[in-house]
């Protein structure tokens, strides 16, 4: 992204105020057709690829885990032999369609864009040849707009015909899977840093006012109005102030922050700089979970690139605003997502403290500090570029805008989807994510991670907003949604989430440290068939005190999984306690495995594989039987039996 000619004078020492706009519309300071062509051709190259050829491969943690690097290597090997320029291969972030990973997106001039899902490295050559040489898109998962020039177009749906794409509103995730996350040039070509440019032309008060009008509320879970946090911090007399991005995403099943920061790190950074400008901060921190190294690496790279281009550092874009950002790795404790613990973690020891005073008044090193979630800041960057109206157009009366949700668990289409707030859970789970697998029944939706609650199937029409979810006994949380079908045991689910909290409790205050352990022990007792009706009272009583008396939000929400399952699935608890049965057949201590003598063919495979030696041959009938005393209930015999003769009895 060099200068167009000698007349361009933008440098770190003398930053140009119109730098961002100049990159896309420029040049602005002089009128030269050659320079203009240079710019527009560069932008066309970025957006459409060399001569209209483009092969996109996603490289985010999720796609890499699914084998995207091997696919990329396979693409690189064959691409030139097909007569396609090698720079047509572009690595991008993740679109959020995780069930398709690793995918390939192909584009040739005159052809529709084609998206191929679950690509294996061995198939790459075939796919590329078919698309580029034979102009055949059959076999693709979806295509872009139909052009009428490719073979097999009629059989492949266009992306906008698919519920998974059509029902989404990609506001903050618009660049995910589109731009190369490691290139600032890409980001600017797609309209990036426009929000910062616009914010710096306003006064900080006007920026806060803009965010206020948009109605943006914190996307970390609690839903505190972002503008109010900023205003409180701005009104503090302190000269030093800080802003922090909370990228310490730790909920099981939530990965929207990682996805955003890995696929579009500059948007997060842009939001951070805007927040810093609005509150009058001098320094920003990006607090990244160390278990997400690629996210940290990409954010670090974004910070360095932004510094090189005068978007970060002294006198940003010539507007006299100094701001720098440091990326800090957390040691990966769940409690660090809590803002006072996060501050303490940067200072040196990660335990939360009593609020008030709130961090916006007394924060990092005693200075006023604003802490915002990754998604909140990405929203800020987007809405500053497009105006508050574009954001407020979505959502409900009390909660505006869109929110990203990660739908995982027993659904057909796992992924991260962005929908307007107020969309019902049913739309998200059944239409976008495709519902549960064939032959299964949806039982509950766990929303908000270990601090959230379970929403039963009959409440699936609950609109997703902060208040409605709270009434249903769950919280929005960071937006992780775990879908459970009828194979899930709700007592076991509550026990799993409580075990997570027990492990992650920092141990500072008694209710959380001891109370959650009591909850966990009681739940374990129930799942092992040793529960009594008194245990339900213990769960409720202890849960109530842990919720009310704990120091921070981690403890305050820790009993949510227990309390919400007790509320909606009490009959399952009673089945465990009174009938000593686990209706879903999950709690192994309450299970019995039995071999159906009518089906058993006497092959002896099960006896060979039984780790406990519990299966023996009945000499009379020649069939095999399980010794219940010895059985450890591992389930090996069920999977290994060639004739499906082993039954699980609940």
């Amino acid at each position, binding site marked *: 992204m060099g200068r167009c000619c000698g007349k361009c004078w933008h440098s770190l020492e003398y930053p140009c105020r119109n730098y961002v706009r100049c990159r896309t519309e420029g040049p602005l300071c002089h009128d030269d057709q050659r320079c203009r062509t240079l710019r527009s051709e560069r932008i066309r190259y970025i957006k459409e690829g060399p001569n209209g050829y483009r092969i996109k491969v996603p490289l985010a943690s999720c796609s890499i885990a699914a084998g995207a690097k091997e696919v990329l290597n396979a693409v690189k090997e064959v691409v030139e032999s097909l007569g396609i320029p090698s720079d047509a291969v572009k690595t991008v972030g993740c679109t959020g369609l995780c069930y398709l990973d690793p995918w390939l997106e192909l584009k040739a001039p005159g052809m529709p864009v084609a998206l191929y899902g679950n690509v294996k490295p061995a198939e790459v050559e075939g796919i590329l040849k078919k698309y580029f040489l034979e102009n055949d898109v059959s076999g693709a998962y979806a295509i872009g707009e139909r052009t009428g020039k490719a073979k097999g177009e009629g059989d492949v749906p266009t992306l906008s015909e698919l519920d998974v794409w059509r029902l989404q509103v990609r506001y903050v995730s618009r660049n995910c899977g589109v731009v190369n996350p490691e290139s600032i040039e890409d980001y600017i070509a797609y309209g990036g840093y426009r929000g910062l440019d616009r914010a710096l032309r306003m006064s900080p008060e006007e920026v806060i006012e803009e965010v206020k009008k948009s109605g943006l509320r914190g996307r970390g879970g609690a839903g505190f109005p972002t503008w109010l946090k900023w205003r409180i911090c701005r009104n503090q007399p302190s000269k030093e102030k800080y802003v922090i991005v909370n990228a310490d995403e730790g909920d099981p099943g939530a990965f929207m922050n990682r996805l955003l920061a890995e696929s579009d790190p500059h948007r997060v950074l842009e939001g951070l700089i805007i927040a810093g400008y609005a509150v009058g901060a001098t320094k920003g921190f990006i607090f990244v979970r160390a278990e997400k190294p690629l996210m940290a690496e990409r954010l670090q790279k974004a910070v360095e690139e932004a510094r090189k281009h005068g978007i970060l550092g002294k006198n940003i874009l010539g507007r006299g605003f100094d701001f720098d950002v440091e990326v800090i790795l957390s040691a990966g404790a769940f409690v660090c997502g809590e803002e006072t613990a996060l501050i303490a973690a940067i200072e040196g020891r990660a335990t939360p403290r009593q609020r008030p*005073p709130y961090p916006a008044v007394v924060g990092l090193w005693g200075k006023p500090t604003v802490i915002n979630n990754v998604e909140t800041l990405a929203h800020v960057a987007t809405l500053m570029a497009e105006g508050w109206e574009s954001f407020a157009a979505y959502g409900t009366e009390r909660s505006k805008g869109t929110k990203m949700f990660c739908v995982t668990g027993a659904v057909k289409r796992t992924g991260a989807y962005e929908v307007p707030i107020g969309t019902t859970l049913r739309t998200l789970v059944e239409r976008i994510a495709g519902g549960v697998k064939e032959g299964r029944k949806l039982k509950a939706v766990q929303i908000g991670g270990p601090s959230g609650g379970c929403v039963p199937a009959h409440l699936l029409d609950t609109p997703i907003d902060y208040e409605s979810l709270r009434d249903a006994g769950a919280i929005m949380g960071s937006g992780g949604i775990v879908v459970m079908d009828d194979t899930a045991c709700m007592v076991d689910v509550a026990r799993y989430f409580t075990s997570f909290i027990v492990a992650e409790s920092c141990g*500072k205050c008694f209710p959380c440290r*001891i109370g959650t352990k009591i909850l966990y022990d009681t739940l374990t007792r129930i799942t092992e068939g040793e529960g009594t009706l008194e245990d339900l009272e213990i769960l409720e*009583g202890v849960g109530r005190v842990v919720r*009310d*008396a704990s120091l921070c939000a981690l403890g305050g929400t820790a009993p949510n999984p227990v309390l919400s399952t007790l509320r909606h699935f009490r009959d399952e608890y009673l089945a465990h306690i009174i009938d000593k049965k686990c209706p879903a057949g999950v709690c192994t201590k309450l299970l019995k495995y039995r071999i159906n003598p009518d089906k058993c063919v006497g092959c002896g495979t099960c006896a060979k594989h039984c780790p406990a030696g519990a299966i023996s041959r009945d000499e009379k009938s020649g069939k095999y039987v399980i010794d219940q005393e010895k059985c450890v209930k591992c389930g090996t015999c069920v999977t290994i039996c060639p004739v499906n003769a082993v039954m699980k009895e609940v």
Partner: protein
Amino acid sequence: MVRVIVNGKEVHVPEGETILTALKKAGDAVPTLCFFGHMYREASCRMCLVELSNGKLVPACAYPVSDGLEVRTDTPRVREARRTVVEFILSIHRIRCWSCPRKGGNCELLKLATAYWVEGIPVCSSCPLYGKDCLVVKGEPCLGPITLAGCGDPCPSNGSPCIGCRGPVTRRDVLEAAAQFYVSNGVELKDVLEVASMFWEGLPNYDALKVSLEEAFKKALGGGTG
């Protein structure tokens, strides 16, 4: 100065102070465990919880006062929370009162446990006899290690063994530890049961208690002294 309403009573405290200061001024004491002046005020024990007018429970020791703040110190929710926190603490507390250096009426936990009706602490916690004077150490079947505290220890104060009139401690881990203490001092199960049968025979859980005690002694005898 800001105005704080404590249980309906108005007090004035300087700005920046905590609710605890206001409570002290109003004369409504709340229990504190972890609070230690300006050395430690991290609000981790949650004993000093009070209820605000918005229904929130907050620790008095760390919550700053603001004008017109309404505080209640004795609502059902506050009592439940405090009581449960005492239960929490006792549930992980290794109760070895007979060998605890804080015995002799100096035990904060005992005060809280009696005030909030949490069972589990034995008479030894407040017994004035220790060291060589301890009756169990002398070999007498004193029921102190397995009887609930709170009576004010009239018997051991006068040099006679505890006879268990307050009722037994039923926590298994306490019984096991007590059995070890008995065994190491040569006190036998039958002597203990003989004294215990006097007051406890009619209790509905006496049989179960007897079984637990027998098991505890068996374990202590098998596992050696401890």
